[in-house]
């Protein structure tokens, strides 16, 4: 029996890394740079093309993940990160485009909910009749409920973890303001203000980006707590073009959040 237990422990050790408290994600290097700088006693692990850095921030054991942008990269790296590190909380953070006129460069939206807004069915039109995006019918993300076996539609997307949301709303953004809001994800950059307004009115979106809604769905499927922070890096209403350095604000905000959030059950 003893030998069997030892063998089992060896297998577990070989199969997966030690669990972490928080999996912190950024799509681009600029989005994780400040978080990596704050990571203590860190070491790097590579799974396929994806890099993870494991260490500590405050009292928490953290895995920082460079996901790459958009659905294919972030879904793959999130599944790998969950399987490898079994986090209690996932924080997805980075840059975004404002979808509402009140937002300014460096403001941060904390995700009350996140959703995929890029899916649709278009009504039939005749040849030569053009294309009418405002008539497209949105298609919500679906997930199979493991208890019932049924596919469930998530029309409003996925709610951010209430406890993490509360802590985030008390966290300092060193470069701008902080609001609770709705984060929309798709592989799109929308600069037509009528379509920006349509997205805000249809989905309640405050900002658009390319990962949070997808990662939220995966976290929900695994039953893992989830929160997203998105800094405004471009504001089409105000004519502010993409400012990649804005990523620094959300990364510093994330470090402040990790140093503040109490031990995770």
């Amino acid at each position, binding site marked *: *029996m003893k030998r*069997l237990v030892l063998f*089992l422990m060896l*297998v*577990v050790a070989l*199969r997966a890394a030690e669990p972490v408290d928080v999996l912190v994600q950024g799509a681009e*290097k600029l989005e994780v740079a400040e978080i990596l700088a704050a990571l203590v006693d860190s070491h790097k692990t*590579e799974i396929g*093309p*994806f890099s993870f850095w494991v260490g500590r921030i405050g009292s928490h054991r953290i895995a920082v993940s*460079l*996901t*790459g*942008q958009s*659905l*294919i*990269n972030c*879904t*793959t*790296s999130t*599944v*790998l990160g969950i*399987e490898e590190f079994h986090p209690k909380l996932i924080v997805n953070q980075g840059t975004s485009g404002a979808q509402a006129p009140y937002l300014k460069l460096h403001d941060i939206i904390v995700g009350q909910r996140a959703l*995929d807004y*890029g*899916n*649709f069915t*278009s*009504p*039939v*039109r005749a*040849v*030569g*009749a*053009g*294309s*009418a*995006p*405002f008539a497209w019918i949105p*298609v919500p*993300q*679906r*997930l*199979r*409920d*493991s208890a019932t076996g049924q*596919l469930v539609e998530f029309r409003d997307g996925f709610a951010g973890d209430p406890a993490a949301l509360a802590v985030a709303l008390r966290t300092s953004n060193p470069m701008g303001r902080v609001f609770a809001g709705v984060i929309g994800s*798709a*592989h*799109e*950059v929308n*600069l*037509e*203000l*009528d*379509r920006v307004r349509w997205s805000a009115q249809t989905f309640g979106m405050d900002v658009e980006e390319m990962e949070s809604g997808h990662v939220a769905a*995966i976290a929900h*499927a*695994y039953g893992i707590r989830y929160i997203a922070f998105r800094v405004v890096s471009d504001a*089409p209403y105000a004519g502010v073009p993409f400012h990649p350095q804005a990523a620094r604000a959300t990364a510093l905000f994330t470090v402040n959040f990790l140093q503040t959030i109490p031990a995770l059950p």
Partner: protein
Amino acid sequence: MKRLIVILLLLTAVLPAAPVEVLLAATETELQPLLARLVDPHTEKHAAWQFWTGTLDGKVVALTRTEGDPLNAVAATTLAIRRYAPKLVVTFGAARAHDPALRPGDVVVSGSFAAFDGMISAHRDLNGGTAPLQWKILPHAIMTPGEQEKYLPAFPAYEPALAVAQKLTGARGRVVTGVLGSANQVNHEPDRIATLRTQWGTSCEDPESAHIAGCALLLGVPVIGVRVIDGTDAEAAALVTQLLGGLK
């Protein structure tokens, strides 16, 4: 004894499953004809996704349910590749034509794959409307070792499997080599379809094939796709059976 059983159960959960030769990815209804013929079937559930393993026409296979959208398809493919280490991924099922020369029943095999859901619009002022036929394409940027992303308007198919696929016989149409396009979209506007075909070179659209191919590319597993224009589940399954028979 109880403790031994618990330990063995734990061991089963953490040990990698036996590798399979082929991973077959499709929607629930598209999988059914193959599941009905699976020899010595076993099933596993993991979070929201389900997998079946067994033998099909002499090949050790795993099947996974994609749910007909990119997110579920990529998640299920990632888990299946991690758990079953397939040598080849096959995405199959029905598709809608982008190429006006395609007819219902024609079979498109993947010369390549295009995830055509990426777009960038130019600035327009409020009340300036939208100009979707002028949107530019935004290819997916696939992460590569060394933390570099590479923008790829198309993902490659595995050529040895493509050579086998090109010899398939369709039940009621031709077999052509083309570009399998995917997005979580159902496009019924002919002008938009024509624009997508011009921009991405797509032969047809379905909800998952190119996203599965992108995931397989990320994880270094070869991939092939077979799609029947307005096809039935039985037609697609029959083509997969032919394909498995032709693979070495």
